[in-house]
């Protein structure tokens, strides 16, 4: 095993066994991301899909359908008019808008013939999983509505009455035999296709209890606002995780120096570059694990969706490089753990706050954003946000990434030059 890898694995093993370090590196950032994300969203039920429902039909059938949706446990339904519903979806405050257009009640009164009742599902095309889930839910409600209608004899008789009215109207128009002939013809064709194993064709054969028309909602402001509050808080959480790594590994070096293990390492035949390289690899690995772990949780459970996976990886690598350099600098801030910890937090806290670690960058006052320019935390969050919701192009990503790499290089060089294994 290469010496650098052995050094890194030793540090990571110690990190796993240090409960305090582990808490501030992995658990606390997750708490920050979830807690602040929930607070900012104003929602207490992150697992429920939020939809806006627009009833433009205003019939008994449409009201019944809305009522059914409101009873679905996995949906959080908000009634709104079309304009407001669509604006909420565009702003990312609702996952989708379900619009019940005029004619829904009329279509719902026909069974097995004619145009089925239709609802429009307005949703961002990129939300394929949510779209599929919502379509399934809507079909289910449509089927249940039909089932309950069939179970209700008065409602069924009303449908039969309406169908006979239609037949009478056709007879008065001199085309009385047409529907019957057509019905029989269709039935014959249907039976023939069933026998041949093919799908039935024709308007009657493909009738379904509910039709869902998916309509795309493209946020005209996409690239300017996050899609949900977790888009903001997970980059913040990742930043706190990175800071946890910086402090843990930076102070770890100080501890090694004060406890004498660093002297023993320097007395061994390893090179100074191997020693520093091992520390850097350990810190970078921990940062990468924190970034990946938090992002996976954000993606799977909180709907954090990157605009670009490639840029997200780039942001993660650049942030890792930057803060490995900062870690090296923290390790030379004091000769004792207390001194280094005091100086380290005194520097890291304002940098984190100015960089958007607590208040999102886009709601900060201008002076604070300007002051935050000196903070690598700002550039790290900007890079993550650029990859997640700001919709940065590769060219736009170059600036924060270049600054992060430069910060890493300068800090690591300064720290490594000041690094003394023993006093």
């Amino acid at each position, binding site marked *: 095993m290469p010496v650098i890898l052995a050094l890194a694995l030793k540090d990571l093993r110690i990190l796993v066994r240090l409960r305090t370090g582990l808490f501030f590196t992995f658990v606390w950032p997750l708490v920050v991301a979830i807690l602040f994300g929930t607070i900012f969203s104003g929602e207490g039920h992150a697992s429920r899909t939020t939809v806006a429902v627009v009833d433009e039909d205003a019939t008994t059938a449409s009201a019944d359908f809305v009522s059914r949706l409101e009873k679905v446990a996995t949906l959080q339904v908000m009634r709104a008019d079309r304009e407001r519903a669509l604006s909420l979806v565009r702003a990312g405050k609702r996952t989708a808008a379900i619009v019940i257009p005029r004619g829904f009640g009329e279509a719902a009164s026909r069974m097995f013939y004619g145009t089925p009742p239709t609802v429009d599902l307005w949703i961002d095309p990129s939300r394929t999983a949510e779209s599929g889930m919502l379509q399934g839910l809507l079909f289910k409600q449509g089927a249940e509505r039909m089932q309950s209608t069939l179970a209700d004899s008065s409602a069924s008789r009303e449908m039969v009455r309406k169908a006979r009215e239609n037949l009478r109207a056709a007879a008065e128009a001199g085309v009385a035999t047409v529907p019957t002939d057509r019905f029989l013809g269709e039935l014959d064709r249907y039976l023939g296709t069933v026998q041949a194993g093919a799908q039935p064709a024709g308007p009657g054969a493909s009738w379904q209890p509910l039709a869902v028309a998916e309509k795309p909602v493209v946020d005209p402001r996409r690239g300017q606002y996050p899609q949900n509050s977790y888009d903001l808080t997970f980059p913040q959480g990742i930043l706190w995780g990175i800071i946890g790594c910086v402090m843990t590994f930076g102070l770890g070096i100080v501890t090694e120096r004060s406890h004498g*293990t660093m002297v023993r390492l320097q007395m061994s035949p390893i090179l100074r570059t191997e020693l520093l390289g091992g520390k850097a690899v350990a810190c970078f690995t921990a940062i990468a694990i924190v970034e990946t772990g938090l992002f996976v949780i954000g993606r799977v459970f909180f709907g954090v969706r990157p605009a670009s996976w490639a840029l997200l990886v780039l942001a993660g690598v650049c942030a890792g490089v930057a803060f490995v350099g900062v870690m090296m600098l923290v390790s030379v801030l004091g000769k004792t753990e207390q001194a280094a910890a005091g100086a380290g937090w005194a520097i890291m806290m304002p940098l984190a706050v100015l960089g958007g670690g607590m208040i999102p960058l886009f709601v900060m006052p201008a002076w604070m954003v300007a002051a935050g320019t000196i903070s690598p935390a700002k550039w790290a969050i900007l890079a993550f946000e650029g990859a997640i919701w700001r919709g940065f192009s590769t060219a736009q990503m170059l600036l924060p990434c270049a600054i992060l790499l430069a910060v890493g290089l300068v800090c690591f060089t300064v720290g490594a030059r000041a690094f003394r294994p023993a006093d």
Partner: protein
Amino acid sequence: MLRLESVRKTFGAITAVDDLSLAIARGELFGLLGPNGAGKSTTVHLAVGLLSPDRGSVVVEGLGAPILPEVRARIGVAPQAVSLYEQLTAAENLAFFGRMYRLSGARLAKQVSDALEFVGLGDRRNDLVRHYSGGMKRRLNLAAAILHDPDLILLDEPTVGVDPQSRNSIFDNILALKARGRTIVYTTHYMEEAERLCDRVGILDHGRMLALDTVPRLLASHGARPVLQVVSRGREVRVETDDPLAELNRLAASGPIDDFRVERPTLERVFLNLTGRRLRD
């Protein structure tokens, strides 16, 4: 095996080692004796290449200056401070330090097991070091120094703060290493340890070597003569003499002896005679 010639090392205004010359033979167990701050640890750090001398030279025979990694690979050091990772087990500590000496695979596993057995910690190999007693940590500190089977072993105050049982165990380990032909430099401020273990002893004070020889010769040249203490008719008499038995016979002829005791010269006395101070002042 190890040669220091006219070595000088200063830290600001403090001269830690001043014009120190020393030649330690292969297989020798050499003691560096002196009070705290005498320059013993600085000498060890110079010998292992952790520090570079301001003046003079340090050479490991046949290999070169210890600043070179390949020379350091042949040296084992047990630092004065217990230098171990408390969150790792004993075996994990040794495996890690073994890798720093480029050991790997089956050889590393064997060396780790052998070192743990050697210091009597084989049955505690999987315990976290933070659960070890002070004596056990000291023994593991020694194990980490000999893990890679070095030719030259530097032990910097290896018995500080340990219980008598662990101290005796460490003494046994050191004598066993000497029996294997290892060259050992042993720093201590305990006179009795140097007298018990070392072939030769160098007495350091304020960075300077005050005397260097075998223990009997140091005692003979700097320790003064044995002292005979006699109690006769309730009166205590102290007589410095080269022949305590003859002196006791002479006193017995002149009156009854109620009690007597012979105080042999010690390295403590040598140090007192050389510096005018006690070793632990």
